[in-house]
């Protein structure tokens, strides 16, 4: 089976997302360090605060550099006439199979980071939840959306015929 992968620029997008998280963490860590230095009652807690803050920032930094690579390596999707299969995850890898006839609607969306990179996300909505195919070029996102829509209509048109046959 020919699985497809997101655009390599998605890797940059994930890194920017994690970098924003890391900046927030850094601000909090610096704020906490200043607070323990300025407030006399908190001075005893200075070493644990430095250690925990430092460890979290280090983990965030490693996460920003390494995790997107693993995530990208494991991200793949497959579309056939009958189903959409999405494989993704970092430590826990999940495989999701969605029969096309169950799709309720399809949305193409773009957040601020993806807008900068020219990437899109296709969201497949079912009654019980939503699934996403991320990091797609506009052309590919529209192609997926159109293909899914066409296949969905084809399948739905085929269904009554199948029902008649069974009767």
């Amino acid at each position, binding site marked *: 089976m020919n699985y497809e992968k997101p655009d390599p620029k998605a890797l940059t997008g994930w890194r920017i997302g994690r970098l924003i998280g890391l900046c927030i963490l850094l601000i909090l860590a610096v704020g906490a360090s200043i607070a323990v230095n300025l407030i006399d009652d908190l001075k005893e807690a200075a070493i644990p605060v430095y250690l925990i803050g430092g460890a979290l920032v280090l983990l965030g930094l490693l996460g920003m550099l390494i995790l997107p690579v693993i995530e990208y390596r494991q991200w793949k999707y497959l579309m056939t006439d009958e189903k959409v299969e999405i494989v993704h995850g970092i430590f826990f890898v*999940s495989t999701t*199979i969605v*029969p096309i006839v169950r799709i309720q609607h399809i949305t193409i969306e773009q957040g601020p980071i993806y807008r900068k990179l020219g990437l899109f996300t296709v969201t497949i909505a*079912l*009654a019980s939840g939503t699934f996403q195919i991320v990091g797609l070029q506009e052309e590919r996102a529209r192609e997926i959306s159109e293909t899914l829509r066409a296949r969905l209509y084809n399948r739905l048109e085929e269904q009554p015929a199948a029902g008649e046959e069974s009767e």
Partner: protein
Amino acid sequence: MIRFGPRRSHPLIIFFNFFKNFGLLIALLAFCIIVGSFSALWNNVALPIVVLMGPLSRLYSYLFTTYTIDDKKLFIEKGLLNKQKIEIPLTTITSVDFTQSLIFQVMGVYMVNVENAASIRGNQTKVQFALKSETALDAKALLMGRKTRNAGEGSTHSTVPMGDDAAYPTADVFHRQDDDNEKILSRRAATIGELIMMGLLQSKGLMMFQVLSGAAVVITFGSQLFFHESVDGQQYIFEWFQKLDGIRLVLLVLAALYLVGIVAGVLLSTLKYFGFVITNRSDSIFVEYGLLTRKTHTIMKDKISGISFKQSFLMDRIHMGMVYVFVAGFSLEEDNAPKDALLFPLMRQKELIGFLKGHVPEVEVPEVYTKPETRALPYFFLCPRFLLAVVLFASTLAVVLVPAAHGISLPFKDSLWMLGLVLLLFTAASVAMEYRHTGIHADASQVSLVSGGFTKNRVFLRIGSVESVRERATLTKKNKNMTHVLVSIIAVPQYANHRVRNVSLDSFRHLASCLRY
């Protein structure tokens, strides 16, 4: 052509959920009368204001909302300043059910709940209004499209009998609701014995927690009444509690909670499901129950996504269980809590095979399940509840063994580790039972999953209702041919996802090959 309305709801809707809304206020008033001081009421003056908000908003809604039914749609017009018009095509309506609280029963009024497929994910299109019983039956027939259909066939008013006994509706009025064109295949009523048994055998964990939270309120108020009572300066009750040692006190509290849980469970289930009758019709299942609040549900068979057979530890021992149903459009109560989708209170395991065959097409009890491999057992212990129990046990042990912790002051410090150990063993037993219960089966017509520790849950899902399947595990685990499987079906979010842990990857592949594409 307009067949009903435009008309307002019955004014009794203002007092819907009377005890729920006014219960706290009544309790506070009772407390003030017992204590002989109204200072508590004046100190909590915000409470009556908050309590009155609900009925006031319903009064506004009653005054400025009208309902109309024509041949094609239910039309609701609401609001004074911000006007809103809602149109619900009759073809999209999935169920029309009635609820009758005690006050509604006395006044001969039904609360009519209309749901459509869109109410799967929220309450936006859920419609609720109150009507006199005979008008409600008439409206139900129109909403379900029966009167229109019959009128077209030249037989008007033949499907819903209109009687003169609506002034004081009894169970007969409810029974008449299933007197429509559908053929009745079977009817079964739950006996009082079965309801009492259900209350006795139900899992007591949640009930004990509810009793505990209720007891906390009672103790807060009660302590002011009893613990401060003294004879010659002696506070007898309080001192008696203080004299008990740690373990004995904990055991006493647990035993008391368990006993109260049993009594409350029996009483509540008997009251809630009193007069439970299930009628199997050719296209639908009709369920009615309740003593104080009488409820009816009409479940269309083709909308059923699956069935669940739930067994508490004790029920499993005597091969009995409770039957629940998952239905598209069978959605949420007014407060967004999931509707209780009980299909039968207590049923023998042997009966389940015949019950499923008769009531739910395409679903049956499978003969064989694929069980997890023996090497999967350690992975079952890698779950949050067992890890939490280990951490708690280690902490209680550390309090006793680590010299640095000797300075920490805790009640019953020396016996805490025993409680930690009991909790750990209890959790380990629950995980081992989960390993024993777990199983998966898939064929061309259904998926069946068995999961749960002390409470065993067997679900039977129609393959046509499965929306997606997912497996999730680490790569190491996948290399050992093990994974968690999640099956999502068309149902309210609370009942939409069903999971089994640590089954083989092959069983997932087989499940995926069985899906209806």
